[in-house]
């Protein structure tokens, strides 16, 4: 018996931006990292296929030997393969158990399934690749843009320099591996025509017909799910909230499966934060807990944290860096101290730290696999910092305890303010997950998982969360915008999504698009159109337009605006 954890990797992030249908993506994501000792025990060679079995399903992936994975623990990057085997129970939080799932591993002669093979297992819809070639721009502007806002990860770096030649992006300066991959390959996996499913197959159609079909689905639904958003602009999000209100449905963004638990912690305790510039200028102690920015937010350490040069703290030498994680990571390599916490026991460790900070006696010699002396040392480091910060990652939100882990971490930071200056910040993943949470909260009063069944906003995580309404089969239609739940939700949720009429609005072709009944392609925010987006710390930025969009393709905001009008017409008889 092993313990399965899932999470982001740099290669998963990079290849996902190039395309989820590429071999590269499959090679990087349909894998299972296993400790060499464990490989020996189960008699599997690194590079051969294994079947991973849990109580929730099974999947064939490639075994990869990994020294950083502890014995007894195996790691599958987040994605369609991992979702076949994770635990869909959200325990009333909206967040499935994506880390710490008991599993069995055995050698197999079976081949690794492709994405469509996975989808076919859960639905009898026909799935076809609809990816088409971009229409080559005959002419186009040539220009170099500076201060470009990167719309990929929550760092939302705003200092890229992008040269455009004849309407195509030619080069990117200041970017990281992920932003380069995105900006130079964004049109690799795209469909350029609206589609509706007719006689079981997606066929190309006009925007007008696709919108009519979509409006009909939403207007006829009793309880639709309006989901996605974190990779589009605030402007688009506003329409999403209105559509949920008009249809009496539920609106949710991807925070449900990333930092939703952080919000739950905030609802219990508040939160003590700072913008990234304040941290860069002043933090002399930086803790990365359950996050791996070197992979997931590649420029974070250089621009804002460990390595960054600030006004009062000049760089890496003047900062102490601590990493707390279940296994060593590329980020822990740059740390002064690495604390290896036992999978699923972060809550215990944080509680012990709170006790140590307050000079309460810890009797156990080790807590969560960490020796007591280490905990006391760490508490001392925390108290003697001038300005400390804890960056919190999905290692805390996805693991057991979920919102409680975050609540406890927030309280630890609150306690520390009795001694010194201390803040924390959630490492939000998608570039505008923060902004869309804000839009939802200012329009409705709640930041995510908002239900309009009774004509006014209600919020009940575990009941009104996107994952739960799908897993329970509550919703009877879905509008998915700029998101790919088919790749990131547990199998049971995807099964229901495939059953109900589903509209997908997205600049790119995705596994979710391939199960859609209506698909409408749109522009990329920050490449083909403008839009307001919020960085992980809440700093708002306006993304630029760099290139002209393909002909007849509108922005999410515009398409949704038209959809709103049509649904209004049907619902209000206008």
């Amino acid at each position, binding site marked *: 018996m092993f313990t399965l954890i899932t999470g982001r990797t740099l290669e998963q992030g990079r290849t996902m931006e190039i395309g989820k249908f590429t071999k590269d993506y499959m090679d990087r994501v349909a894998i299972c990292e296993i400790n060499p000792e464990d490989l020996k025990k189960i008699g599997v060679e690194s590079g051969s296929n294994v079947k991973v079995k849990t109580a929730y399903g099974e999947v064939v992936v490639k075994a990869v030997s990994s020294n950083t994975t502890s014995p007894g623990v195996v790691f599958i990057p987040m994605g369609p393969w991992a979702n076949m085997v994770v635990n869909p129970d959200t325990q009333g939080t909206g967040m499935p158990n994506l880390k710490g799932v008991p599993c069995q591993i055995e050698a197999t002669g079976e081949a690794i399934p492709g994405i469509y093979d996975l989808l076919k297992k859960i639905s009898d819809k026909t799935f076809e690749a609809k990816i088409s070639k971009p229409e080559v721009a005959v002419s186009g502007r040539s220009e170099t843009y500076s201060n470009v806002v990167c719309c990929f990860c929550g760092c939302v770096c705003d200092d890229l320099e992008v040269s455009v030649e004849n309407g195509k992006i030619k080069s990117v300066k200041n970017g990281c591996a992920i932003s380069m991959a995105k900006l130079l390959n964004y049109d690799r996996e795209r469909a350029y025509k609206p589609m509706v499913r007719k006689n079981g197959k997606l066929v190309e159609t006009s925007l007008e017909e696709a919108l009519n079909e979509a409006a009909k689905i939403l207007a006829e639904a009793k309880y639709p799910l309006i989901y996605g958003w974190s990779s589009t602009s605030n402007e688009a999000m506003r329409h999403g909230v209105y559509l949920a209100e008009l249809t009496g449905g539920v609106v949710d963004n991807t925070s449900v499966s990333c930092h939703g638990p952080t919000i739950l912690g905030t609802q219990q305790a508040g939160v003590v934060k700072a913008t990234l510039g304040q941290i860069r200028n002043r933090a002399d102690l930086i803790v990365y807990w359950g996050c791996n920015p070197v992979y997931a937010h590649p420029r974070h350490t250089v621009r804002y944290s460990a390595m960054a040069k600030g006004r009062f703290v000049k760089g890496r030498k003047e900062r102490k860096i601590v990493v707390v994680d279940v296994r060593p990571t590329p980020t822990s390599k740059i740390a002064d101290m690495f604390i290896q916490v036992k999978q699923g026991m972060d809550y215990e460790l944080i509680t012990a730290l709170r006790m140590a900070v307050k000079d309460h006696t810890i009797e156990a010699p080790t807590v969560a696999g960490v020796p007591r002396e280490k905990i006391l040392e760490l508490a001392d480091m925390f108290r003697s910092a001038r300005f400390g910060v804890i960056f919190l990652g999905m290692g805390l939100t996805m693991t057991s305890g979920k919102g409680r882990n975050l609540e406890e971490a927030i309280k630890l930071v609150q306690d520390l303010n009795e001694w010194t200056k201390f803040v924390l910040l959630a490492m939000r993943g998608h570039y505008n997950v923060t902004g869309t949470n804000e839009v939802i909260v*200012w329009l409705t009063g709640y930041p995510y998982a908002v239900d309009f069944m009774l004509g006014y906003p209600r919020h009940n995580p575990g009941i009104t969360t996107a994952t739960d309404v799908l897993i329970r089969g509550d919703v009877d239609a879905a509008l998915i915008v700029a998101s790919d739940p088919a790749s990131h939700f547990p199998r049971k949720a995807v099964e229901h999504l495939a059953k109900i009429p589903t509209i997908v609005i997205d600049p790119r072709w995705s596994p979710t698009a391939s199960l859609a009944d209506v698909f409408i392609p749109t522009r990329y925010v920050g490449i083909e159109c403008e839009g*307001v987006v919020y960085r992980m710390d809440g700093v708002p930025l306006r993304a630029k337009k760099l290139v002209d969009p393909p002909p007849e393709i509108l922005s999410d905001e515009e398409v949704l605006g038209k959809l709103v009008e049509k649904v209004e017409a049907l619902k209000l008889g206008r």
Partner: protein
Amino acid sequence: MEYLIKNGYVYDPLNNVKGEKMDIAIKNGKIVSPSELSGDAKTIDASGMVVMPGGVDIHSHIAGPKVSAGRIMRPEDHYKVYMRAIPGVRRSGSGKTTPSTYVIGYKYARMGWTTVFEPATPPLETRHTHEELDDIPILDKGCFPLLDSNWFVLEYLQNKDYDRCAAFIGWLMDAIKGYAIKIVDPGVAEAWSLGMGVGLSLDDQIPNYNLTPREIVRGLCKANQMLKLPHPIHVHCNRLGFPGNYVSTLDTMDAVSDLALNQDTPIIHITHVQFTGYAGDSWATLASGGEEIAKYVNNHKHVSLDLGQIVFGDVTTMTADAPFEFVLHHLAPGKWSSTDVEAETSSGIVPYRYKKKNFVNTVQWCIGLEVALLVKDPWRIFPTTDHPNAGPFTSYPTVLAWLMSRKAREKVFEQVNRRGLRKSALQAIDREYDLYEITIITRAAGAKILGLKDKGHLGVGADADVAIYNLNPEKIDFSKDWETFVKAFKRAAYTFKNGEMVVKDGEILRHMYGETYYVKPRVPESLLKTVVEDVKTRFREWYSINFENYVIGDDELRAVKPIQVETTLKG
């Protein structure tokens, strides 16, 4: 649509109209002379009703990062208080002390208010503030950038470079679409960045700078005068929330008295004075400093005040005074949020409940009313609740009734802490505001102190923002029948915004949007260039975004109303 509002008792202090029966005509969003109406004008029979300009609120936290942070941390504030959508008419929302944006617009409009200013926005995050303001329906609005701990301001003031300080602020107002200079516990955010700043006094030194809060207030007051901004500096005094702080308030007001140039208009506005009106030297010996403050204001024309009047019940305290919220977190243990914004400011949030039986809360309740009743000039006192700090804005009708009726106050006297009640002069005050004075403090004076020429009155050419209340001033004795007043003010009979009927019989009729005001001071080009170059060179070192992305375009806002301002700056 054209309207003729007939036979109402009109209250229009800026035009000296004191409840006379008059007709008010509306055409193309403006007040016109009745003779200009066409035959299509719709007649509104306002006989037996009061007609006033739409309400103007100069201080209410309705938008921006801290407001949403308050919403996020308080789902319980939203469970029970909500508004259902009426398809095609109005949208839905929720929240009592931290309502969602639609609810804010609707509830203000239902009370007959049509213009509201958000008094604290961190410049770096003002794009967010504008996004929320943009989503508040019906109201016209604006916001005050926080400048007392801004590094550029601090450096210029430290170098006594007032010209550049003013030029910088002029540039910033235009760049981020701000309206007035906000000062919160001057210099405190810089101290809080080091975990210090609790109880900072007017003459303490700000860490890292050779500056005191006094110098910051004076410097910003000078800059404001050079820029000739329409609103005075808007100041939340040092030591807010500490017993004995009324002295700081007096000192702060007096710190700029020599800068007043004999003009009638205030040069410093002291906000939510209740929170900085405490005598005594501990919570146990707390008493009111209200009399002293009122006396000063009565003798000095350069000061105006708003109350921050306590209303008993639940609130969400939120302020850029982060160290004070840290202190409050200890007085009221539970949830606490705090945010630092690089190079500029910080903020804190703590949920709180004012209890009638509580000694301190009773003293607080008395102070606001005492000040309001002792200040003689109604043009320099504003009946805010510092929403949502001392009470939600939806309590305004109740607060006004306390001012209008001794009886209404007496009813509360019976319920509150006896000992607390004796710590102020309130019980001995008989003054009752009349409806004309109420019109001044809730609309005319607000428009005047914000410099909004087309608001707060019903003269020809004014914006057609009009509130009609079902109140007959000839029949009702407000002193006795204050409950009728409260009922009428909670739900206006009609509210017109820009000439559109938006409320009838206290219900929202339509979802529409107002405009956002900001100032555009004319800074001489060469000076502007020097300052912008200066800002650019240090921006990269100080901020985590690029200078170019800091600036907010007019096209990012739904509808802007720039106010051109001629400055005294020389190039």
